């Protein structure tokens, strides 16, 4: 007996030592790692076993559906590999919570994992898209490469139970950096085009997908493509060149139009407004109708015009003692020298005198006549001529150095009566005419001498008379220029002195 006890003790010691050295223990607690449904119709759960305890351990998965207390065991332990449980279609329900537990059991004991509650709708993660391929197409204008793929297997797209959305990403293979991926959302389509790739680059392309609002799948394996070096992005160059040409042409056209055409010029470069004199019309000035211009300029009070009730033309008559003026001879008109000098002068004077309008009273009449008679005609005449300021009417009076005496004109000039009568003047008014010399822009050829003038009634601008009485001019038939004067004179309206001047200058 004592020997049996010793043997039992030795055996127990041996056993305990053996068990210690071999570390048998009950099964460790397993852990459910993940459950996934690839197509919203089935799902699989995986667990990680705990320590085995050295003994063969078996695992069982039990689940319970939300509404019932009935416990079921996993329908398929093998389809999805080791430590997994595959729920097929018959056993999968969506929108219901599953309570899943894994039990590990070995000879020494059981261990229960933590319970996991899952709803199929939360664990949907499809497989990656398949058959990803990339082709490069060199269009004439826009090179691009096309990525194409197929939907993941087992996803049912035809019944509408799932809607798949895709995402494409690509990067240039030269860099190893993970952040160089460019991602593009591709929606529901099965292909995607990338335009204007870098020439000479080697691209890697990947695609992934997700179902409804579930989890993204893994990225598909990379598809590679090498872009050739010699692609030309001709479309861009052509467009740039054409746009530049168009702009240049447009600018040139606008510039030419601006220069040539007034409306365009006024549109593009509006003229700066200039100061205007009210009433003065520059266009009218240019056209030469001076009477209209100056009539517009007339404002009450300026200039002081003493309008005599009877507008007359008064003449300065010069008498030629030596010779009769030959009005018939046209040639004398042009000849300014020699014998005809005086005649011409006289005629010119008469011509000039026709143009002069007196606005003064008749007080000067006799005075004038006296001076004309007595004094040097030259001065007065020159004064007159200078007043008129017409080059062609310059009187070179000093022909022979002899003073010319003013005398009565012959009948050609007047009705034959005496000067004193002022026959040329039908109204009977005569007077000396003085004209404001500031109006002239020409330097008078001969110095003026006003010593002979006794009295000056008015030193303002003369107002030219109304129509020069025709009958007066009738006498002067042989004088072409005077006839001209007649013609022009016949149409006179009450005029400013300057206006008449301008008219005559343009007329003659």
């Amino acid at each position, binding site marked *: 007996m004592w020997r049996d006890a010793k043997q039992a003790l030795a055996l127990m010691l041996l056993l305990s030592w053996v068990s210690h050295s071999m570390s048998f223990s009950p099964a460790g607690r397993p852990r459910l790692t993940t459950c996934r449904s690839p197509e919203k*119709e089935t799902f699989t759960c995986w667990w990680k076993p705990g320590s085995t305890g050295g003994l063969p351990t078996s695992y069982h998965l039990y689940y319970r559906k939300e509404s019932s207390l009935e416990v079921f065991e996993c329908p398929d332990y093998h389809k999805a590999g080791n430590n997994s449980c595959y729920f097929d279609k018959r056993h999968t329900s969506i929108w219901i919570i599953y309570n899943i537990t894994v039990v590990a059991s070995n000879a020494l004991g059981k261990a229960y994992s933590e319970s996991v509650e899952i709803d199929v709708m939360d664990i949907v993660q499809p497989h990656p898209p398949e058959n990803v391929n990339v082709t490069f197409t060199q269009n004439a204008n826009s090179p691009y490469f096309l990525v194409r793929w197929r939907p993941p297997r087992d996803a049912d797209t035809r*019944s509408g139970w799932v809607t798949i959305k895709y995402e494409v990403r690509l990067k240039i293979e030269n860099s190893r950096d993970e952040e160089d991926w460019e991602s593009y959302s591709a929606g529901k389509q099965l292909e995607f085009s990338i335009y204007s790739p870098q020439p000479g680059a080697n691209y890697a392309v990947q695609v992934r997908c997700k179902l409804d609002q579930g989890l993204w799948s893994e990225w598909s394996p990379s598809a590679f493509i090498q872009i050739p070096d010699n692609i030309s992005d001709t479309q861009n160059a052509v467009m740039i060149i054409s746009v530049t040409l168009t702009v240049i042409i447009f600018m040139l056209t606008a510039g030419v139009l601006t220069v040539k055409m007034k409306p365009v010029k006024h549109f593009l470069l509006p003229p700066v407004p200039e100061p205007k004199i009210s009433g003065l019309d520059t266009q009218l000035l240019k056209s030469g109708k001076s009477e209209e211009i100056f009539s517009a300029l007339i404002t009450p009070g300026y200039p002081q015009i003493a309008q005599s009730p009877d507008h007359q033309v008064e003449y300065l008559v010069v008498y030629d003692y030596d010779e009769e003026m030959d009005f018939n001879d046209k040639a004398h008109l042009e000849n300014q020298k020699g014998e005809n000098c005086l005649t011409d002068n006289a005629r010119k004077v008469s011509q000039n005198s026709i143009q002069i309008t007196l606005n003064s009273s008749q007080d000067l009449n006799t005075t004038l006549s006296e001076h004309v008679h007595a004094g040097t005609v030259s001065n007065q005449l020159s004064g007159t001529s200078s007043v008129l300021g017409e080059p062609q009417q310059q009187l070179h009076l000093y022909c022979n150095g002899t003073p010319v005496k003013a005398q009565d004109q012959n009948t050609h000039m007047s009705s034959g009566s005496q000067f004193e009568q002022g026959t040329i003047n039908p109204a009977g008014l005569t007077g000396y005419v003085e004209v404001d010399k500031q109006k002239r822009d020409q330097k008078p050829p001969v110095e003026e001498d006003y010593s002979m003038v006794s009295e000056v009634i008015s030193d303002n601008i003369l107002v030219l008379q109304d129509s020069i009485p025709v009958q007066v001019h009738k006498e002067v038939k042989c004088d072409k220029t005077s006839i001209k004067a007649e013609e022009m004179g016949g149409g006179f309206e009450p005029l400013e002195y300057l206006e008449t001047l301008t008219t005559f200058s343009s007329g003659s």
Partner: protein
Amino acid sequence: MTQGSRLYFAVTLLMCAFATIHCVGLNELLERASQLSDKLHSISTSLTNDLDSHFPPVGRGMMPRPSMCHTSSLQIPNDKDQALKVPEDELLSLARSLLLAWSDPLALLSSEASSLAHPERNTINTKTKELQDNINSLGAGLEHVFNKMGSSSDNLSSLPFYIDSLGQDKTSRLVNFHFLLSCFRRDSHKIDSFLKVLRCRAAKKRPEMC
């Protein structure tokens, strides 16, 4: 407005409404409806993520059961085969019933969102308002679809919601908010799935619609 112009206006309005409803095909209506339902589901998913980002750990363990949602009494297909066997008008009425059941609770959520004890309160508030708008649009759209489909009976299930307050203290308000939102997320997924099946069935000749 004079009588004549009023009449004219009414006639024009009727014609426009007529044209709107009947000149748009069923396919387009369903396409638009499924787009809206997709948006509804995605907003509710992102809202749940926002809530979960800062959810107090104590609430996690006490996740309320989906069977406690007020819409759990509705009999719905629970897998694909069942769903594909359901006739179209029943699918539509299921979707509409679910949608109708959520208009009041969403109003409650919307009113509570602004005073939620959560760091992402503003985002949550905005998204809740967006949910409310979308649900109204979808409800109107499904009305049109129903009229277009010409079903004889309108058997909408009534799923009443009797709760008018989320709770008294901050924590319970937050927990109840989270629970309601999870119920809604599930139901929005149901609506989305049913409408997409419906859409695919209506577009028999155009498989690319699915």
